């Protein structure tokens, strides 16, 4: 007996059930995605992509709807993002991007987890101390969503490395700690003509910004003259601030990858968690 084509097989395995709001829908469970991927010799991402093309929602994304439409969910699966840094910001971002169903996530970090990371870094745990951050990130991504192609780079990137790392990516995400490597990343994103979503934290102060190609990076400006100790060395890097920053960055990255307009293009969102005050600052009109 000949095998039905993939589209037909997906329809046969799909389950009709309502969305949480009662609207009828058709869903494909992860077990079916895995079976079909094996049967047809395809990556699971392609099975999910084919399901979405037939208006069938992979069940794991059901609660992404209607924050994202089925068409936007398909765009996320087709999208690729470069995540530079897999520590405090990067750990939270990885979680958001992988659960969100971003098809390709390329992550880089040359660090190993150490005890001082445990206060805030989602990928840091007791069992992982001494393990490369990129390796833990790969394991986490695979454990959550095997449809995501997570490309781990266990190493730090110099300026040339940043350029190579961003090749073919739709969006770059600055999840670096410290100032040293941020200018090279901003420059690489500019040269690749892709948006850069950036964030930084010091104490309970957070800034998140989206830099479109050709625009100045506010994080470079906010770093000041940086002659003495950096503010986070004095003020610390507490978990609520880091997780707030990564959640906001993740929101902006998903918007961009889904094909929506960025909310923070040319702007910085400056948050004072001490007073729960949020201000949006326009960096395109900077008079410096």
């Amino acid at each position, binding site marked *: 007996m000949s095998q039905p084509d993939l589209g037909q097989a997906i329809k046969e395995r799909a389950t009709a059930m309502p969305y949480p709001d009662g609207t009828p829908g058709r869903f494909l469970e992860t077990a079916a995605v895995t079976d079909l991927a094996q049967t047809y010799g395809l990556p699971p991402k392609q099975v999910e992509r084919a399901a979405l093309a037939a208006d069938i929602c992979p069940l794991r994304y059901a609660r992404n709807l209607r924050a994202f439409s089925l068409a936007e969910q398909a765009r996320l699966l087709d999208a690729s993002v470069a995540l530079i840094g897999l520590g405090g910001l990067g750990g939270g971002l990885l979680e958001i991007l992988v659960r969100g169903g971003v098809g390709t996530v390329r992550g880089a970090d040359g660090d190993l987890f150490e005890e001082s990371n445990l206060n805030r870094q989602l990928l840091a745990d007791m069992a992982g101390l001494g393990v490369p951050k990129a390796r833990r990130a790969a394991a986490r991504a695979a454990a959550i969503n095997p449809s995501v192609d997570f490309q781990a780079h266990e190493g730090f990137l110099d300026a040339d490395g940043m350029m190579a790392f961003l090749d073919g990516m739709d969006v770059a995400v600055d999840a670096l*700690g410290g100032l040293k490597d941020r200018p090279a990343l901003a420059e690489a994103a500019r040269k690749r003509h892709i948006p850069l979503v950036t964030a*930084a934290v010091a104490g309970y*102060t957070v800034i998140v910004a989206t830099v479109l190609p050709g625009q100045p990076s506010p994080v470079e400006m906010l*770093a*000041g003259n940086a002659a003495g100790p950096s503010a986070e060395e004095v003020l610390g890097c507490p978990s609520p601030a880091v997780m707030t920053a990564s959640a906001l960055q993740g929101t902006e990255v998903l918007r961009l990858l889904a094909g929506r307009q960025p909310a923070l293009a040319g702007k910085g969102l400056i948050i004072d968690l001490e007073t729960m005050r949020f201000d949006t*600052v326009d960096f395109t009109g900077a*008079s410096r």
Partner: protein
Amino acid sequence: MIIRVHCLVPPEGPVAAPDRLELPSGATAGDAADTLHVPPEAIGTLLRNDVPVERNAPLAHDDRLTIIPPISGG
């Protein structure tokens, strides 16, 4: 003149920065930071009405000055 202040640099003493600050006419953003006892090295960026400015930028009555520490952690 009186300006509005949002100082994200923690104070060195026990007293938080005020929400409003009275300054002589012609005072600059740097003058305001000095009046608040925020040293230059503790400042990453000064914002006047949500736009980054240098220390020598003049202030006007009811301007809003935001003082942000240098910030690069993650």
